């Protein structure tokens, strides 16, 4: 600190004020320095920050916190916008963790939907049985985690209706899915019971084609694409966090709007 020479009354008073304010200064200065150091560190290390496991752990912890924040923000009655048929994106893009030439062909006649966990009636379902249930259709926007979006038309059984039919515990925390393409994911019960969450059996009025998830995909306009599992073989209801294919690699688990 430089010592100022008080030449005038005003300068003297300024110095006195200065001196009085200096008492809490070390702590404040220390805090500021640490803040600046943190900023400089972030600027200098850039991408290599993400290699550090402590940073990874902190980011994962933040992602879990964001799951809770999003669960809290989620209004089960708030509907995603719907669109006229004329706005459907054609062709609707294919997307999976594998290429389009690797799409799984599932035998619809042999296929059974298996149920497990906190479900009262666990008998497997055939495709014909699912088609005999109440059907609804929607034209909604599919938003991919990559940022792009496309509008599509899906039809099928309202999932809340199905969960009631099989006696799924509505107070359970998670609904998990295992798929014929070895994909797996899980969602929160509030989204599972959202009025626009449907077990899609059709796309654009036709039987769901293999590339869109034959025989059944879960369609949720309130979730990002990776939360909408295709070729579903098994559904389970649980209170134990089931994770997911992408979620286990770092995509946010709630993953929805």
């Amino acid at each position, binding site marked *: 600190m430089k010592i100022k020479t008080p030449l005038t009354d005003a300068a003297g008073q300024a110095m006195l004020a200065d001196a009085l304010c200096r008492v809490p200064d070390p702590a404040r200065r220390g805090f500021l320095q640490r*803040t600046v150091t943190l900023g400089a560190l972030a600027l200098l290390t850039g991408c290599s920050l993400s290699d550090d496991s402590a940073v990874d752990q902190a980011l994962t912890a*933040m992602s879990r916190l964001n799951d809770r924040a999003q669960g809290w923000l989620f209004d089960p009655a708030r509907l995603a916008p719907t669109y006229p048929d004329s706005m459907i994106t054609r062709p609707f893009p294919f997307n999976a963790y594998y290429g389009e030439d690797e799409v799984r062909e599932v035998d619809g006649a042999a296929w059974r939907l298996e149920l497990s966990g906190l479900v009262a009636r666990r008998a497997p379902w055939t495709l014909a049985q699912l088609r005999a249930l109440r059907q609804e259709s929607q034209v909604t926007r599919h938003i991919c985690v990559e940022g792009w979006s496309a509008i599509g038309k899906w039809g099928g059984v309202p999932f809340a209706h199905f969960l009631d039919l099989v006696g799924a515990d509505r107070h359970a925390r998670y609904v998990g899915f295992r798929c014929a393409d070895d994909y797996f994911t899980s969602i929160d019960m509030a989204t599972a019971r959202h009025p626009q969450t449907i077990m899609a059996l059709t796309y654009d009025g036709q039987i769901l084609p293999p590339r869109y998830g034959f025989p059944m995909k879960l369609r949720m306009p309130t979730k990002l694409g990776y939360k909408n599992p295709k070729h579903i073989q098994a559904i389970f209801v649980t209170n134990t966090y089931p994770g997911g294919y992408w979620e286990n690699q*770092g995509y946010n688990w709630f993953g929805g709007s």
Partner: protein
Amino acid sequence: MRASTIHAPWLRITHWINAVAVVLMAASGWRIYNAAPFWPFTIPAGATLGGWLGGALQWHFAAMWLLVANGVVYLAMNVRTGRLPRQFLPVSPRQFLHDLGCALRGRLAHADPRHYNAVQRVAYLFVMLDIVLLVLTGLVLWKSVQFPLLRTLFGGYELARRLHFLAMAALLGFVAIHLVMVALVPRTLLAMLRGR
């Protein structure tokens, strides 16, 4: 406040936290943009943060809390201390054009760093509003179903994506000019570091 103080501690702290948050948000946001670019260019991967899309999203959705919480403290303190009207108002188009002309000819005096000229006022007000725009368009992208009013206001999800990007570009434009000005008048950096 000390007679010699230009920037109060809260201002310096929020300024530097904001600088860190903006760098983290921009660098991770570029990586997210690269996953599905809507214009015919991508951002060089070396300038991005996160290593891959999932990592970039984790950074983006962690740093957003820093940006918003710090921004709220900054605005609240500006209002509470009366700094907002004192430092940034009034702004008149005439004064702005006059000061801009002087600035471009290199004749704008920085005699008193406590006093902002009209160009500075407009620039700082602009960047405050721009960050608010970034947060609001970001909310539409993150929670398009939960904020229907915002979604409609910004013309739907796809337009909000582009507005979010443009607001980022505008913020970087501000940062570029800001850094040039700091280079031209280096004692403003000292003032932002130690307060005087």
